Every structure is written in C-alpha cells, then in structure tokens.
C-alpha cells in the first residue's frame, strides 16, 4: 500500500466515508427519516444543518437515510450484475460455439434498446418495489458486464498458456478459475467501480421520475423530486443530492482509475 497516489487516497477516503455513513445511518442521523420537525423549507440552522424539506422534515437526516437507500440499492444491483454478467461472459468465452452465439446475440438485442427506456417499459407493468428495482437494474447492467467479461476472457483464452493448459488435459474449471480469472480480475474490478456509479445515477434518475424508491422512504433522487418546486423560489434544497452524488461518483471513479493503472503497470512491463 506504499506509493499510494493522492487521488487514490482522496477517493478511498470519501468512498469509505459514504459507505460508513450508509451503514450507520440510524446512529448518525439527528432525526427520523419521516419525522416532521419544523416548517416548510426552513433555512439551515443549528437544529437543522441543511434546513428542512418541502413538508418540514430534517433535510440532513433525509440525506443520510437517502444515501443509505441509494448506496444499498446500487451495491446490490452491482453485485447482481457482476455475478451474472461475469459468470455468463466467462462461460461464453470458454465454451464458445453456439452457446456463445446465442448468449451474445441476446445481449446485443437487449443493448439495442436504451437502458432507461427498457427500464421504463418494464416498470410500467411490474409493481415498483426495492427488490424489483434491484433485479431490473442488475439485469440490464449485467449485459455490459457480460460484454466486458467475455471480451477479456476471449483475449486471455487465445493466449498460449491457456492452450498449454488445454493440451495438458486440464478441465474447464481449472482453465476458468486458475488461468483466466486471475488475469481478468483487475479490469473487472475497475469496471465494477464504473458500474456502481452508473447504478447510483440510474436509481436516482428513476426515483426522480417517480419510478424508483417510493415515499416516504428517502433516496437522493427522491429528495430532488420532493424539493424541486423550491428551486423557482430560490430554495436550493433539491441541489444537496447533486453534491452528494457527484462526490461519491468522483471518488469511486478515482479509486477505479487507480486500480486500473496499478494493474496495467503490472501487466505492461516496459509500458
């Protein structure tokens, strides 16, 4: 862990800060998430550091609880998309043939529809609940992970050391887990950061459109929706989530960049 670049330190610090805040939200938040504690859109004060929202709830508490919801949904969706996407992608690359063809063409088809539009079509039919949001987001995003994992695995699969393992008589399990996976891990981990950011932005967007987390639960996109009418009166309550989302996204980006750089220098030799 020596020689850590500044950008990575900043990124790691803020990323862990947000995750800790999400985990310990009930201990940190000064008020309850749906508790009405003051007037409408009160400015910031000692009692309410960020002021109150459109119906008089403490905005700081809602931001903290909102972060918890947003991060939890995004994390779950990322894990889901990663496990399905990478397992299927590796399998397609190693098995090849018609299995690869069928899966890859299906993914092409899903990706030929813009993600948001696809999500809207699906959400117009199914009830909007947190598990469903996670499944829909995870499924849609797994197509991207699938493509990356497959591409990486295909690149590795044509390496002579994989051929050498096959000529030795090694089984598929050894080839996937001992030859391909260790070499594919780093680009996938970096991609995981980007997918997580995407999931944060995506769930916020859905909530903002009223198709994500349902009130009185708080999440960052929902807070914007609730307080957006204040903007016209010069009340900036709806803008706090912007700061939160941006700092989280940028710090995760910095971490992902660092992971990627570190691994390319491992692979690249003389660069």
């Amino acid at each position: 862990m020596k020689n850590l670049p500044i950008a990575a330190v900043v990124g790691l610090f803020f990323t862990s800060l947000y995750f800790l805040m999400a985990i310990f939200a009930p201990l940190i938040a000064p008020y309850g998430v749906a508790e009405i504690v003051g007037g409408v859109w009160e400015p910031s004060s000692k009692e309410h550091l960020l002021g109150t929202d459109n119906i008089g709830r403490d905005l700081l508490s809602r931001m903290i609880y909102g972060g918890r919801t947003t991060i939890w949904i995004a994390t779950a969706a990322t894990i889901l998309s990663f496990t399905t996407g990478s397992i299927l992608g590796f399998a397609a690359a190693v098995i090849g043939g018609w299995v690869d063809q069928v899966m890859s063409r299906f993914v092409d088809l899903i990706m030929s529809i813009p993600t948001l539009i696809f999500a809207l079509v699906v959400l117009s039919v199914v009830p909007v609940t947190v598990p469903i949001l996670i499944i829909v987001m995870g499924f849609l995003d797994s197509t991207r992970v699938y493509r990356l994992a497959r591409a990486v695995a295909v690149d590795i699969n044509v390496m002579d050391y994989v051929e050498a393992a096959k000529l030795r008589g090694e089984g598929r399990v050894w080839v996937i887990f001992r030859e391909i996976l260790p070499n594919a891990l780093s680009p996938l981990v970096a991609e995981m950061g980007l997918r997580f950011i995407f999931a944060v932005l995506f769930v916020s967007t859905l909530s903002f459109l009223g198709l994500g987390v349902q009130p009185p639960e708080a999440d960052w996109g929902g807070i914007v929706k609730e307080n957006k009418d204040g903007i016209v009166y010069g009340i900036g309550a709806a803008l706090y989530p912007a700061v939160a989302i941006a700092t989280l996204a940028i710090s995760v980006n910095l971490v992902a960049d660092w992971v990627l750089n570190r691994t390319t220098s491992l692979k690249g030799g003389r660069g």
Partner: protein
Amino acid sequence: MSETLLKVRDLKIGATIYPPGEKPRDIEIVHGVSFDLEPGKVLGLIGESGAGKSTIGLASMAYGRGGVEITGGEVWVNGRDILKSGLNDVRKLRGGEVTYVSQSAAASFNPAKQIMDQVIEASVRHGKFSKKDAEARAVELFRKLGLPDPENIGNRYPHQVSGGQLQRCMTALALCPEPDLVVFDEPTTALDVTTQIDVLKAIKEAIRDTGVAALYITHDLAVVAQVSDDILVLKMGDMVEYGSVDQIINAPKEDYTRALVSVRSIDHEEKTATSEPVLKVEGVTARYRGTNFDVLKNINVELHPGQTLAVVGESGSGKSTLARVITGLLPPRAGNIHFAGRDLSAALGGRSREDLRELQMIYQMADTAMNPRQTVGTIIGRPLEFYFGLRGSEKRKRIVELLDEIEMGEAFMDRYPAELSGGQKQRVCIARSLAAKPKIIICDEVTSALDPLVADGILKLLLDLQKVEDVAYLFITHDLATVKAIADSIAVMYQGEVVRYGGKTDVLSPPFDDYTDLLLSSVPEMKLGWLEEVIANRKMESAGN
C-alpha cells in the same frame, strides 16, 4: 572534398521506465556513443535488443520515440549540431537531408492514402521538387527497386501490395527527396528469407546508384556485412567495437563481437535411425474451419526416438499447422498419426492423459506461454502434480532438479515470468514440458523471438537435454541456420506440401529442387561479398536456362 556528413559525439539518451508496482523513473539507455559517417558511406549499427541501436538511429534525426529523450552529447549533420537547432530547422532536416526506413512498412504507411502521395509528400512539402518532378522521380525509384508495374504501383493503397514490395516502396519514400543520409531500421527483419534477399539487393543497389550515405541498423551481423563499409557494435547502450566491415567480420578484437560472429556455428552430427519411429504422420491433409483450401496436403513424415526432425519453411508454408494437427488442436480431414506404437485420436478430446503427457509443446513467445500470475514454481510444478500426483517436498525436489537442468537454479522458484529475461522464460517453458517426461516435444519457432546469442544458448540446452532425457524434438522453424545446428532429419515445406524430406546431410546436399535451392541460397552468410555471389549465380542460372 570529404566533409563529415554525420558526426556523433558522446551521445547520451535517457528514457522513463515504469517498473511494476513502483514509481516511474528515468534511466540512461545510451551511455556516450561517438562515431562519424562520411558522405556516400554505410555504417552498420549492430547489437541485440536493448543495445540502443534504433534509438541512436532516430537521434540522428533529433527524434526520440515514446518517452525517450536525448540527454547529452552532440549530433552534427552537415556541419550543424541538430540537437541545438530549432523545431523548424529540425523539420527541414527530417524528410529532407535525413530520411527513415522502418522495420514495418505495413504500419508506417498511412492506410487511407495512395502510395505515391506518401512517397512524394516530403519532397513536395519541403519544396525540393515540383509534384510532377517528384512523381517522375518516384517512378524511376520504383523501377530501380525492382517493383512490378512501376508506372502505376503508386496509385495503389498500401494494403494492395505485398510486404516485400511495401518495404521497397518505403525505401523509395526515403530516397525520393534526394537525402544525404538514410536511416534503415531493421528493414528486412520482418520478411521471409527469400524476400529478404531481394529487398537487400534493391537497397544495396539503390544506395550505390544514388550515392547516399546510410545508417543500417540490424541485429543480424551477416546481413549488415553485405551492405556496410563500417560497423559499430553496441551492447546495452555502450560501444563495444567500431571498425571496418573487414576487420569486424574477419578479425574481431572484443569477445562480444567474436561471439556475434561465430553465432549459429553449433556442430551437430546427424544421428541415424535405429529403432521404430515414435511418431508417424501419414497422409495428413488439413484445412481451417470456414476456409476452402487445404493448408496441409498429404503430409508424410517420421520422427525417431531421441532424434530431431526439423520442419522448415517460410510463413504460410503450413509448418505451424502441422504442429496443431499433431497436438490434436486441429483434427485433420484425412490421414493418421501414429504415436509410440498406437493410433492417436484426431481430436484433443479423444486423447488419453498418457497421450497428452508424452507429447509436449514449447511455443515461440515464451511471454504468452506462461500465466503471468503464476510463479515459476507453480508453472513447472503443475505438470508434476497433474500427471504424477507429486505433492509437497517431493514436488519441490523435482522442481529444483528441473531448474538445475535448465541451468537456472532454486532461486528462481518464486519469481514471476515478468521478472525473467527472454531466454530465462524460454528455459522455464522447456522445464515445464520436461516435467511431463515426454517422448516428444514439439518446438514451434522456439528461438525466433530471441537474440542470436540467447538463441544459441537455448539450442545448446535442447541438444544437451536430448542426450540426457532421450526425448525427440519436432522442431518447427523458418531459420535454416537453426536447422543445421539441431536436426537429424529435415522436412522442407512449401505451400502446404513437403517438397524435400530425408536425413540432414541428404537434404542439404545437391542436387536440389528449385525451392530448396532458393531457400538455401537466400540465407545470409557471415562473409563479405556473399550477396554479390548469390546475385551473380542467380543471373548465370537464369542466363543458362
């Protein structure tokens, strides 16, 4: 009046390296090199990879590739120190007074523009010739360089001509603006030997006819001996020896130069077949899926225990495909493979573990043949574990034995491939295949990616191991010198067929078939005047016919 054209004094060049897991740091890659070049003369820069020869060549155009930077010294061209010149002066120098021919013409031509456009670009843009004059000059150069249809070849796009032709087009590109100096950077290295000799001849005649001076950069001393007046031998950025061609080839002073001169002179007596062949390839015909022509046509060869069969041919001859068929990666359309007294299943999936163990393979690129995330110990240990069930201290003992056999030793056990040199990597691959105690090892161009001295070391090791382990080699190569060094029998392949096959002495003795004759006579020999001899012989033959 013979004023010095290029004068290099105490040239120092640095580069930034990015070692894994560490901060980037600056290192010096050329440590004070000095030499002179008179107008119309050719200086050969020779050395193995990492010698800094290309870097020095580019420095004579005040250019540093990638993160390379010229850190000290002087480079005088026509009486000016170009390292102290402004950018505009340097631009006039490049493409005007000094031009460049790269190793890969295929990558160096812009794919979106016609060849003529690129050949005359420097002449026209620097105002040396009008467009019409430059074109006329280019056509004349195309003719001189022996390109087909010199009037029209300039209208083609780079992908429409062959590699050897494009390399000659690149030479025309360099000669078009009537430069004083051309830097040739390994111009024939990427070509097959039979193509190389034509390009070499074209370059030599063009240099002679135009009276241009040249820096000729190569790792192949035999090649540079044919075109140079003087030779500068480099090693790891240091000057080793600097003298006339005659002196360097016939009376080298330094040990390193002597080693370079005597490279590829391993003596190997042909062994005669004593027992039943361990491998019999019978009537094998094969093609790749989705194509409609056979890359192998009715191949019949045999390999005897403890001997070496060299399969030699140029790119596209099908020699590597033969290896894929024998290993089971590409099941043949017709024919059989007998191995150790049994019929081998055509497909890999149908072979027993014993079949797989007894038939091992070593690859050309040791870099990609080893998993970068596994240590040397894991790499060599896996076959021990997989085939013989060795574990723990027993396995460790055997790994150490193997490491000793490849002259590396226990200290390398926990290293990763990235920490090894090219030769060491190939040795580890050899140990991995030996670990299986095979009857045959297929060696696919195993020395082609290595520097000559390192390659020699690998060949000697393989010969020694053959005596100890009694293993047979199927040795696939394009390099006839390697064949002479290691083979007991030889199969010459051309366009998917074996055109000549037999014991080494028979195959390499006349009378030859046409192709073998061409192939044998095209291999550069380490003596002065070889190129002229070959050209004269070929002229005589074609006159006689």
